[in-house]
Structures are given as C-alpha cells and as structure tokens.
C-alpha cells in the first residue's frame, strides 16, 4: 500500500524520537495458537482473555489503528485507564514493558513483545459526532469506531454500553505530542506484519474496533484487516 505523510497540523514541525529502542520479537509460534482470527477492516471484536494468556495483535497490511479497551472480566467497572497507565510509567507511549493499569490501579496486561515501537494512548476512538467536529458536520453518517464499540457491547451478554466507553489504546497509531504541547497525527510507524503482544495479568474482556475510518490519513485512507492470536 502507499503511504503518505500527512499531518493534521503541518505547521508544527517536530523531531522524530527513536522509538526502535524497545523492539522485542516474540518466540511464540502462530501454529501453536489456540485462537486465530482475522478482524476485517472496520469491524469490532469482543473476546475474553484469561489471566496468563497472551494476545498478539498483528497489523496484517500496515498502518492500521486497532482501537482497544480492556475490562476486568470479573468486574467490568474496572477498566483500562489511559491516565493511570501513562502517569505510572512516566511516559506517554506504550511499548514493550508497558504495564496497562486499570482505573483501580491494578495491572491488567503487560506488553511483552512489540515490533512496532510505540502505540498511542491519547487519541481515543472516533465517533459520528467527533467526526462532525473534526471534519465536517455532514460526516455524521460515516463509519466510526464508537459505532463498532456500541454494537459489540449491545449484542454481547455483558451489561455494558456507552457509559463503559473510556479513553482507549490505539495500537499501531502514531500520535506524537511535541515538547510545546502540540498534538499531531502522523503517518503510521507500523508496517505489514508488525505486531504487539500482551500478557493478561487478570481475566479480561477485550473490546476492539479495527478502525480507522476514511477521514483519517494515518493509514493512507485504506483501512485493512488485523489478525488476533491467543496462546495459553
């Protein structure tokens, strides 16, 4: 696929940090995975992950944004907290060694392998209404991540809905913050075949929207599938 550098705020140049320092490859063999599923572009995925299991999220064609929220399977009111996670690790971006914390301060999952380098935790998920603000009031009917989240929760057996949607992780997405505090959306640093692997620290519900939608330049306006593998 073609990639193009297109920032949402091109007047704010900023240096590119070295995000290759934490690249760690996995020793797990996909042939041994107990679960192997491809999420088509633009679709949701809702799945449980038991403590100790490993989830690999594979960017099949490059520069995807896999919007992900983790919930405690025992008490879904306990969920991934972007602010607790980045504050505790003293850094904005997620990569190998990052421990994802819940809103109760408990470790939910640890990133144990990462061939991409860093993942966004500030950019959130697109919604019909936020697309109106970001692009045009007429964009409301377009496909978006929050629709995915809402339909996945509505059709699940969990008693969860919009109230349970919180700031998510965007795996493979590059959203740098400059030292001056500017937030920019950059062309992805991911590529076909790159992956991130997480080990569950508690029994989890994983909610994914395999976005982005077609207004976002981060994947050259070409949403592609993602592959999910789980090992015991």
């Amino acid at each position, binding site marked *: 696929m073609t990639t193009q550098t297109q920032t949402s705020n091109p007047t704010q140049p900023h240096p590119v940090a070295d995000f290759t320092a934490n690249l760690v490859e996995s020793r797990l063999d996909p042939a041994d995975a107990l679960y192997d599923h491809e999420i088509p572009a633009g679709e949701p995925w809702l799945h449980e992950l038991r403590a100790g299991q490993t989830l690999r999220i594979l960017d099949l064609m490059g520069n995807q944004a896999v919007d992900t929220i983790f919930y405690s399977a025992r008490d879904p*009111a*306990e969920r991934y907290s*972007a602010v607790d996670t980045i504050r505790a690790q003293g850094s904005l971006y997620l990569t190998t060694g990052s421990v994802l914390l819940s809103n*109760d301060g408990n470790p939910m999952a640890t990133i144990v392998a990462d061939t991409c380098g860093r993942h966004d935790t*500030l*950019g959130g998920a697109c919604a019909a209404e936020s697309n109106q*603000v970001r692009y045009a*009031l007429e964009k409301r009917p377009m496909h978006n991540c929050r629709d995915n989240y809402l339909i996945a929760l509505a059709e699940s057996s969990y008693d969860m809905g*919009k109230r349970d949607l919180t*700031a998510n992780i965007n795996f493979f997405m590059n959203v740098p913050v400059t030292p001056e505090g500017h937030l920019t959306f950059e062309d992805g640093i991911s590529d076909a075949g790159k992956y991130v692997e997480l080990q569950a620290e508690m029994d989890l519900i994983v909610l994914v929207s395999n976005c982005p939608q077609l207004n976002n330049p981060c994947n050259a306006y070409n949403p592609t599938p993602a592959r999910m593998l789980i090992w015991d």
Partner: protein
Amino acid sequence: MTTEPLDPSRSVHTELLPGARNWSFIIRRGFALRLTDRRGGANCSALFFNAHEKLERYNMADTLKAQHTAFLTAGHVCYSDMGRILMSITADTCGWHDTFCGVSDAALVRERFGEARYQEARNAFLRNGRELFLIEMGKWGLGRRDLVPNVNFFSKVAVDEAGVMRFEPGHSKPGDHVDLRAEMDTLVVLNTCPHPLDPATEWSPKPVDLAIYRIDPAAEDDPCRISCPENGRGFANTAIYHCQL
C-alpha cells in the same frame, strides 16, 4: 494573558475550596466559573458532565484531537463525547493546564506522604483525588464507570520527544486564574488534591477560590469559536442542541 477583575454586579456566588477537598455544582448556560489559585502551586482536578444527561461527559481524546493540543489554555474548549462543547476557556493567566495525568489514589498518597487516618489526624487526614472524585460524583449517581480522564487546572506536565513526562513545579503563581464559560448546563465536579506527579513530599494541598458569575454568550468572533475550524463546528453542534439554528 491578563484578564479583567470580576464585575461584582455579575457575581452570583463565591466560595473557598480548601486544599484536598471536593465540590460540585451545575454551571448553567449564561454563567461562568472562575478558578483562582490563591497561594500559588494549586492543583484543581475537574470533570464535566451534561447536567441533563450525565452519560454525555468530558472527553479527553476528542478535546485534544479537535484542537491539536495536549494541554488547555485560553481559546480552548472542553468537548463532550457527543461533539458538543461543555465549557470554554475564556481567560487564563496560567497558560498551561494538564489533561493527561489523572488524579492521585490512596496508594500514591500513602507512598508519598505516609499514613494519616481520621482516627489520629481528625480532619487533617490524608485524602486523594480519586476518592474525592468518587465521593462527589456519587452525589449525582455517578461512579467508577464515569471516572474518565480529567483536566488538572494550574498544573503543567510537558513531554519530550520520547514521550517522557516532566512536571513543572511552581507553574501557577498566586492569583493565577482560569475562566470557564458554560456552553451547556454543565455539572462541574472538582477536587483540590495535589497533582499526582507533584514531587513535593510535604502534604500541603492548596486552596482554590471559586466564583460563579453571569457572562454574555459567545459572540460570532469569540476567541474560542474562531481559534480553529473544529471549534466553529463544535459551537454549531452545541447551538443545534439548544435548537438555536
């Protein structure tokens, strides 16, 4: 940025929020809330909800994305998750308010300041931002599911190119203030616990003066409305909500 002193005839309520305390209030359209750091070095953590439908609430990601910023100051607005504006920042003498560090919890306070229970310390017992948010939100039927990323007024945390965070001590000076104009009837939930990355080890939470006052609606050339095209659309969405278009 300098701002005018409040016109006493416009003031409807003033209150002192002591350090490490909680507060909530519905600021209706046509009113604004001024937060003033009385002594300097304050931190005021804030969450915003649509007063009539509290499922609609402040959304950190949408606020930052729409305005291409990681911090808030005058000219910025606080977006809800429904593409509408809850509060506009119409004045700010401080220049930088943190949006992505959350609040302290009991473990953090215990680790940094030690133990001080009510049984021994009486009302000087140690509190933390998370519990004060949950207490105040509980009064409105809100709980852990509603505890989303908040704003920390008066606190500055910048990051370097690698994303490493750096808290700036002494960022807010005595008398610094920030003015929040309600664009919708907004439930404001506050606490004044120290910022979770403030390295101070002496427990000295700072008070914040609260003032609610009448304010004119945003004009067509309002700085918040015209600061970026996204905010123009945010104001339009908010006007549609109020059936004004």
